[in-house]
């Protein structure tokens, strides 16, 4: 009986914390639906009529539409490359015996512990030398370089669990190594590729530092960099500012609602397999 009571006693502060977790976003959503006048008069109360037009204003007036497309292009390119390159390397490192495989795995592992901030100055120079600053391929390549060690590590540990008999059987059936990769490893890796893909998409979509560094011109801004510039343009029009923030958050919210499991799997894979 007392144990049961204890559970409820714990649940109350946890519910308060849960409320504190969602409140900021609800507050922003509520503000985004107000008129400027309503916001200035009373910023807390629930808005009476929903002013959806704020979303349209934010979308059209500061180039949010353009930033949105920029982000989509870059994220799609980076994730596709990460999954292909990462699964190829993961297959080789987990299932194929070749000279130097351990050393190569250690190199990938070491790169995992180099944060972007530590290499950003020389990386920006290298990218400038290659003529890739302020180009889509440049930002895509920077994202691939940033998240590849993590992707290789995860795909390697996932593919280790594939029984080698399956690969041997496929080889006896006449498959080349590439055939095994395409016909066995890619389909079998689907759950891991989905998890890693979503996680990488979130990382790239949410990034601001790499994008600021690689895409200096206003035309090429990604959505998150666009959000940082909203503040300056709408410092006296908070509802439109909040509407812009909301637009930038919606794709992530939708992804979370449908793919929470896969995201959590990706986050925890490093912990349970390290």
């Amino acid at each position, binding site marked *: 009986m007392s144990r049961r009571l204890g559970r409820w006693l714990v649940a109350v502060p946890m519910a308060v914390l849960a409320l504190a977790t969602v409140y900021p976003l609800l507050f922003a959503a509520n503000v985004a639906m107000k008129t400027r006048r309503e916001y200035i008069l009373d910023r807390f109360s629930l808005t009476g009529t929903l002013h959806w037009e704020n979303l349209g204003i934010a979308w059209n007036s500061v180039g949010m539409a353009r930033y949105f497309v920029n982000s989509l292009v870059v994220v799609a390119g980076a994730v596709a490359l990460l999954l292909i*390159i990462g699964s190829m390397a993961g297959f080789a490192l987990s299932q194929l015996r070749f000279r130097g495989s351990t050393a190569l795995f250690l190199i990938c592992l070491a790169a995992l512990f180099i944060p972007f901030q530590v290499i950003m*100055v020389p990386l920006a120079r*290298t990218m400038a030398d290659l003529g890739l600053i302020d180009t889509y391929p440049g930002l895509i390549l920077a994202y691939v370089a940033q998240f*590849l060690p993590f992707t290789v590590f995860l795909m390697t540990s996932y593919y280790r669990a594939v029984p080698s008999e399956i690969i041997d059987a496929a080889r006896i059936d006449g498959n080349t*190594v590439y055939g095994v990769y395409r016909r066995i490893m890619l389909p079998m890796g689907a759950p891991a590729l989905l998890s890693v893909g979503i996680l990488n998409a979130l990382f790239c979509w949410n990034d601001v530092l790499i994008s600021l560094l690689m895409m200096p011109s206003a035309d090429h801004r990604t959505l998150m960099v666009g959000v940082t510039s909203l503040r300056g343009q709408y410092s006296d029009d908070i509802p439109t500012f909040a509407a812009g923030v909301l637009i930038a958050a919606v794709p*992530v919210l939708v992804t979370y609602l449908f793919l929470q499991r896969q995201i959590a799997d990706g986050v925890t894979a490093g912990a*349970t397999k390290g």
Partner: protein
Amino acid sequence: MRPAEPRPADRTGAGEPVAGAATSGSRKARDGRRAERLAPYVLIAPALLIIVGLRLWPLMLGVNFSLTGDGERNGTSVGLDNYADLFDDPLFRTALRNVGLLVLLLPVAVALPGLLATFIYLRVPGHRLFRSVYFFPAVLSPVIVGAIFNLLLAYDGPLNAVLGGAGAGPVDWLGDPRVAVFAVVGVHVWATFGMALVVFLAGFATLDPALLDAARVDGASLPQSIRHVIIPGLARTIQFVFVTTMIGMLTSMFGLLYVMTGGGPEGSTYLPEYYIWVQQGQMNRPALASAASTVLFLIMLVVGLVQIHLLRRVGRED
């Protein structure tokens, strides 16, 4: 995640058996064998090229670069001058002091999600909902989180209104140099504790439930169970969370700082990553920025190694 058994269709690959062709010793078969031997290298080449060229090589370049000059002395060797400049700069010293503060706050940032995960594991009412809700800010961009909290923490914003209702004076959350750094770190913890929570829950999944039941039968209280069953059982998970939380604090607060304070007020919210960005992007002192990068890398190495060492020792004592 575990791979599923492949469907039978996956096994039947195209192409004729190689065995016969290999014994005939034809040129085609030799080429085929060589291609097969090279295949692992071909598969790993793109990854290796990118990782070495754009991660490891820049690390070397950066260290080297930090020993050369900026501006007029561009390209010439200046020894450790940049490092001397760095430690003379009050902004960088503030950044280092803030790193110290983060290290001190680290146990809280680990214990909070750990405790919440324990309650969720013990199935408090609503545990499924709590798990989903707590994890959700972790997927939001720091830029979005920062933008929203700019509104919430405004001098005339909701938080001060709540405080005012309770009779406490308004606090200038982002404008007071003594308060701002705590406000930003608080927002970072709010935004990321769900990440650690999920990792803890994955650790709990590997814990033998019989141990906890046995402790309960023996009449152990919850704190006793945590101390003697959960902490030793999750030693590796706890170690992982400590290291990743620290790395997160040192390398993923840029977005918040950029949106919420811009390093101010009075430079009080500088962190090394923000300092590197400002020196590289605004002040046009890339060599000085490289020196700061090298210092940040050393800090992370030392903090990481010390943590692993300490936590191993704690683990052994149990």
